[in-house]
């Protein structure tokens, strides 16, 4: 059973004919070729697939494409500034080495955007708790937490125990 689904993705109206069982993540990756949204698990745990649907962070592997009928969807590809430069969150991740292999990174950035919208100055504990649904295997989270706090405008040099290199 094929259905036509229409939505706005990163500000652009799109329309695709999909099977009913098609996931939002599949529509984004396979039909729209927005491959920045990643699939890292099959139980909604890892968070590599987080996008925003009508402004809320959603795991796109756990939502059918047709459930996003008429919705405003934004993905990692739509996060940079209009001139193509990294936005505040993306820049903080680069500046503080908040990514290594990069696979969980799109989900981390999208979750961070959602966190900072809800809580513009989160504490370390609040950041760590909010990341419950995003798994990173590379960074031990240190630099992700630091990057998120830096993106919120906080002085991370006084928060994080830091390396001493002489």
């Amino acid at each position, binding site marked *: 059973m094929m259905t036509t689904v229409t939505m706005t993705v990163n500000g652009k109206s799109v329309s695709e004919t999909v099977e009913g*069982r098609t996931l939002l993540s599949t529509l984004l*990756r*396979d039909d729209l070729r*927005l*491959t*920045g*949204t*990643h*699939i*890292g*698990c*099959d*139980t909604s*745990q*890892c968070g*590599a697939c987080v996008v925003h649907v009508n402004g809320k962070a959603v795991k796109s592997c756990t939502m059918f494409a047709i459930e996003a009928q008429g919705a405003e969807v934004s*993905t*990692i*590809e739509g*996060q*940079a500034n209009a001139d193509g430069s*990294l936005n505040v969150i*993306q820049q903080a*991740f*680069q500046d503080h*080495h908040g*990514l*290594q*292999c*990069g*696979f*969980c*990174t*799109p989900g981390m*950035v999208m979750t961070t955007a959602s966190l900072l919208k809800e809580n513009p100055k989160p504490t*370390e*504990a609040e*950041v*760590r*708790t909010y*990341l*419950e649904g995003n*798994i*990173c*295997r*590379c*960074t*031990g*989270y*240190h*630099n*992700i*937490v*630091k990057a998120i706090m830096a993106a919120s405008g906080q002085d991370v040099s006084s*928060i*994080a*125990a830091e*390396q*001493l*290199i002489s």
Partner: protein
Amino acid sequence: MPKDDGIGAATVRREDVRFLTGRGRYSDDIKAYGECAAVFARSNVANGTIKSINTDVAATMPGVLAIFTGEDFVEVGGNPAGWLINSRDGEPMKEPKRPVLAHGKVRHVGDAYAAVIAETAAQGRDAVEALEVEIEEHAAVINMKDALAGTNYVHDEIGTNQCFDWGWIEDNRAATDAAIKGAHHVTTLELVNNRLVPNAIEPRCSIGDYNPGTGDYTLQTTSQNPHMTRLLISAFVLGIPENKLTVIAPDVGGGFGSKIYHYGEEALVLAAAKKLGRTVKWTSDRSEAFLTDAHGRDHVTKIELALDDKGNFLAFRTETLANVGAYLSNFSTVTPTFLHGTLMAGNYTVPLVYVNMKTVFTNTAPVDAYRGAGRPEATFSLERVIDMAAREIGRDPIELRRQNFIKPDQYPFASAAGLEYDSGNYDALMDQMEKVSDKTGFAARRAESEAKGLLRGFGVNAYVEACGIAPSNLVGILGARVGLYDAATVRVNATGNLSVMVGAHSHGQGHETVFPQIVANMLGIDAASIDIVHGDTSKIPFGMGTYGSRSLAVCGSAVVRATEKIIAKAIKIAAHMLEAEASDVDFSDGTFSVKGTNKSVSFGEVALKAYIPHDYPIDMIEPGLEETAFYDPANFTYPSGAYCCEVEVDPETGKVRVDRMTAVDDFGNVINPMIVTGQVHGGLGQGIGQALVEQTTYDDDGQLLSASYMDYAMPRADDLPFYVVDHSQSTICTHNPLGAKGCGEAGAIGSPPTVVNAVIDAMQSGGKNITHIDMPMTPHRVWTAMNNAQ
């Protein structure tokens, strides 16, 4: 002086921009015109005989293009172990064939016995469900002791479940036994190094393509070492001529060892592509990853430490059973042996070491190298038994270690386990660890914890490991079936920018940033004008890839050697341009100048001359400016470190929280401290994960109970603290041109015993006579131990 983007600079990573904007290109992001999908039928029993596979119904399902079974691959080769290990009696290890698809028997849950190729993966999955398969289930071989004692064999044709019974150093066995027998004090500890699943967040993915017009195959795959994968497929498995197979590893989303190895799915998509003339893609889901990616660790060890009456270490002796799973994965035989036994002298002047290692086949997924690969297991055994010994003889654990440390003036030091350590300063690391961790403040912090009703413990660890694998001559003697050099080609383009082709392959390590820093430093040009090419066998020289913390020490050294050749040739070209003798030409900061004159040409001018060789001594110097170097290391490198941590334990629940974690490491010269620190952070996260939460559990029937992120505890952000990481006490590697040792695995090696030692310290402070708790120290285990203790 380092340039601001040269050696020693904490340059931000250039690869980040594409990863942060969704423009990375991982294997599953690649979509070929007309591609179809491979879906595997996998055994749901651990041990069974395949009676029949009827594909008739499945073959008529919508979209189905072809179905393969083990029968289709009986004529091709098996996936080999990369290292031949001999038992103590000289017998070669048992090496049963590992086929592309299971044939005759299935040997672990997840063992693939058929593959459906369909237009879409969803159609393929539907067709797999329609296969009519009869598998006669047999009792599973799971427990290693039972496996060795029984007559139920994972591989009937070898008549045993033991792969080998290895001794190291066999000539020291009697002396070690005597030392232990006659010792003033012997501490004995039995421990488990828990089985882990690497869990790179990017699942494996392989895409096979075949061009009937040329006979060329292309495999795009999630690999840490594309040339090694090509060699294995060509020389051992499918027999495709090496020159007709290109292996491309694009962006790879983490590996931690699990993407070193060649897996049957890679061979299957190539064979299917040839049969169908279509591009065939397989992407693992997470469940398949748990069932089929090579697992890590899984040792059961008894270790003894003999001491004299002054606390001097006299001998270490271990007996270990190591699980290799159902089939030998590529590094599975070297990981528990030469990457483990050779480190069993640790940081110590102990004169005798004897390691007995029995490896065991079981009906479980293959077990192979995972971040640290044998060294975490060695460090864990050593540093746990030393801590226990200190308690037993009433010594401070730090002072007992210091007493037995190799001292800085003893290098090069021949360890009792057969390695020659080139450099180190373990006391300096320990001093720095005590300082930056504020050890003196521990008593006050313990009082604060106790006021909250919590126990607080302090744990310490010292480690040395072997990286930069490895000198080919040495490993050849020890049984390696490959050389372990690496290679780099530096191509100076006509317009003066550079492409550097390397054999190492980044799966998160930041090679695209770090290697240009080295070349920029040597040539005195901007790193931004240098690009790295990696991961494509049609473009890069034959290098062995990225694992064992080797990329910088081995491939980075090849980059240095190739760049030196560039400079040597460029000086000759510059000498001609400057009408001087080459011996009179100096090169610094990107400029060639004639000694004692103001005559000079820039690097860019020389590059242009090399490619537009008008007025050029064509009879003496070839045009072009491109050089390749292979670098084979003279020795392993020996990173070392001193770690400590403080834990809080809630006696009501048994919950352990790591409050402070300090890692002081000696990695030799550091090229990019930001990246090195990040590598330590990641290792610490995985090591704390092993210590506290991660556990791979098979039930007696061989069902993997921990086969999803619902059941296997991956460390989350709120399980972990901020870390203190320090590289201030480095000593330089003496035998490679960068002086670099390697940093990728240290955190995962140093942290597990540190955490366990801290928890035991907390238990003791609470008046509980608990001497050991096995990892992972879950609340249930800790609570049970506390309630069972006096």
